């Protein structure tokens, strides 16, 4: 039932006491780094400042900009010779962000991923095909090490080459797959083109999906298409990668592994804690990382704590699926809009496909929002009036959700741009 029973089932006082002890350790490690050494000295912070987890609020926040401006070694607490791995971002918009790990860190991370997979139902009897980029992207090696730790047979399939992915699934009777949700739709199309039915022609029983925000509706669609349960995985490279929060078999939110991540949800502008249950920005402090601990790191991911306890018996709090990022929010006619709000509506319509594109344009000096959605060939009847009615319904329901009236364009299946990795959802063509 549990991978780390004493930690996963720990009662709240035990968990909070463990967090407080580990937070003090983290501060002690962190102050050895040039960045935190200077910052803590300036703010007069030491391990003595921490008596309970509530004292976290006395500590300053860390941002992605801090990571970038102290690239590459400003956050390192140990000698470089004692680190064994780094992962870094592409750095297309400035310095990359880099995270260093020592042996302890990799061991702790692998254990967290193993715990996550186990809680979603993966076992050592599973054949686990990891369909995502290996290399600098943390999903590849992160799941590789975690699934190996769990004892599954891991196929490091990496990304791309859909025909070969299907071949691997058939040759080795793959039972569990980790990938990004948008890829599963492509995979399903490929199955159909090869005249195969995944339910009949594979041994698939479980998906782990993450790295790409998606809605509950999209998850259900995946489950219906394949007849396979899909579990939500959450992580970010600054917090190792995968294995930060994960869905258990109850599928009612993601348990954050609180023994390793002190978790706060704050208002993105005031940075004050939100009222329990309200949506805000996730903030993490690593509690079991030595080479490069991070304190109150602002993730820019938006979610809320879910109330109540989970029937699975784990006391680690649950967060809702990520509803957006503070930086992918866009503003049209004064309304704050997240792409996820629009996706949620689109997924209610069986007649439209799974790809969509939100276009933001300026017409006659006014911001306009156009949503392009793909027609599903199977629903096409040749009736113009029916299509116009469908487009009108989508307009109405989206307007009710985002309070701005969009233009809905139906487009031919497969005509929307697909990127090799994550799907492109918003294109902002507005003039400043």
């Amino acid at each position, binding site marked *: 039932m549990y991978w780390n029973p004493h930690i996963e089932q720990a009662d709240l006082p035990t968990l909070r006491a463990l967090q407080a002890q580990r937070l003090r350790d983290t501060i002690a490690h962190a102050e050895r780094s040039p960045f935190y050494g200077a910052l803590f000295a300036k703010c007069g912070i030491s391990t003595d400042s921490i008596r309970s987890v509530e004292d976290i609020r006395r500590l300053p926040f860390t941002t992605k900009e801090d990571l970038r401006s102290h690239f590459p070694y400003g956050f390192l607490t140990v000698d470089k010779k004692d680190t064994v791995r780094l992962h870094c971002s592409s750095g297309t918009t400035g310095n990359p962000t880099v995270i260093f790990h020592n042996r302890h860190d990799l061991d702790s991370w692998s254990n967290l991923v193993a715990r996550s997979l186990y809680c979603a139902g993966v076992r050592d009897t599973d054949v686990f095909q990891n369909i995502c980029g290996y290399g600098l992207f943390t999903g590849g090696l992160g799941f590789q090490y975690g699934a190996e730790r769990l004892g599954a047979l891991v196929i490091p399939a990496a990304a791309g080459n859909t025909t070969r992915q299907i071949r691997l699934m058939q040759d080795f009777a793959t039972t569990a797959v980790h990938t990004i949700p948008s890829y599963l739709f492509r995979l399903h199309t490929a199955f159909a083109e090869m005249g195969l039915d995944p339910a009949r022609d594979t041994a698939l029983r479980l998906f782990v999906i993450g790295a790409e925000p998606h809605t509950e509706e999209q998850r259900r669609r995946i489950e219906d298409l394949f007849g396979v349960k899909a579990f939500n995985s959450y992580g970010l490279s600054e917090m190792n990668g995968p294995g930060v929060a994960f869905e258990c078999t109850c599928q009612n939110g993601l348990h954050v592994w609180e023994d390793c991540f002190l978790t706060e949800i704050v208002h993105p502008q005031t940075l004050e804690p939100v009222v329990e249950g309200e949506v805000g920005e996730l903030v993490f402090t690593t509690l079991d990382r030595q080479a490069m601990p991070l304190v109150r790191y602002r993730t820019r991911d938006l979610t809320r704590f879910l109330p109540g306890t989970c029937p699975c018996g784990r006391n680690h709090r649950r967060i809702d699926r990520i509803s957006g990022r503070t930086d992918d929010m866009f503003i049209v006619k004064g309304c704050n809009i997240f792409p996820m709000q629009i996706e949620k509506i689109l997924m209610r319509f069986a007649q439209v496909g799974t790809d969509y594109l939100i276009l933001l344009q300026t017409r006659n000096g006014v911001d306009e929002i156009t949503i392009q959605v793909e*027609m*599903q*060939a199977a629903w*096409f*009847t*040749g*009736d*113009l*009036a029916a*299509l*116009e009615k469908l*487009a009108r319904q989508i307009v109405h329901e989206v307007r009710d959700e985002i309070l701005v009236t969009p*233009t*809905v*364009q*139906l*487009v*031919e*299946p*497969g*005509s929307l741009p697909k990127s090799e990795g994550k799907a492109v959802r918003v294109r902002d063509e507005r003039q400043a």
Partner: protein
Amino acid sequence: MIAHQLSIFLENKPGRLEKVTAVLKDKGINIRAMTLATSTAGWGILNLIVDRPQEACRHLSETGHPAVLREIVVVRMADRPGALHDMLVLLANAGINVQNAYGTVLGDGQTAILIIDVEHTEHARQLFTAAGVATLTAEEVYCV
């Protein structure tokens, strides 16, 4: 056999129509009549009468075009004032809504026919038969 028109979903963008006609040309399919119904939101439906509709529909679907066959009613038009009006009155009196209608000329270059897209094709056919207006079979339409 009941006649069918081929209906194809199209985005209103340069080159889209050509992609469809390229498929038909490639398969040697002859277009007998066409109309294009467009929505204001940048897409529309292309309706075609072709000589081999089933085959055309299959090729278009295989090349990724949403295409379907829709049943139609085809009648021969008498060459006199009021002929079209009389036929439309028949449908209107029966409460049958016309989704789309277009005309073409038979191969003899003399006879005009009317292609009608209605919801209840069987009902419409019965009305015409009862009024003494002959409806054309698929074979007659495709060989126009």
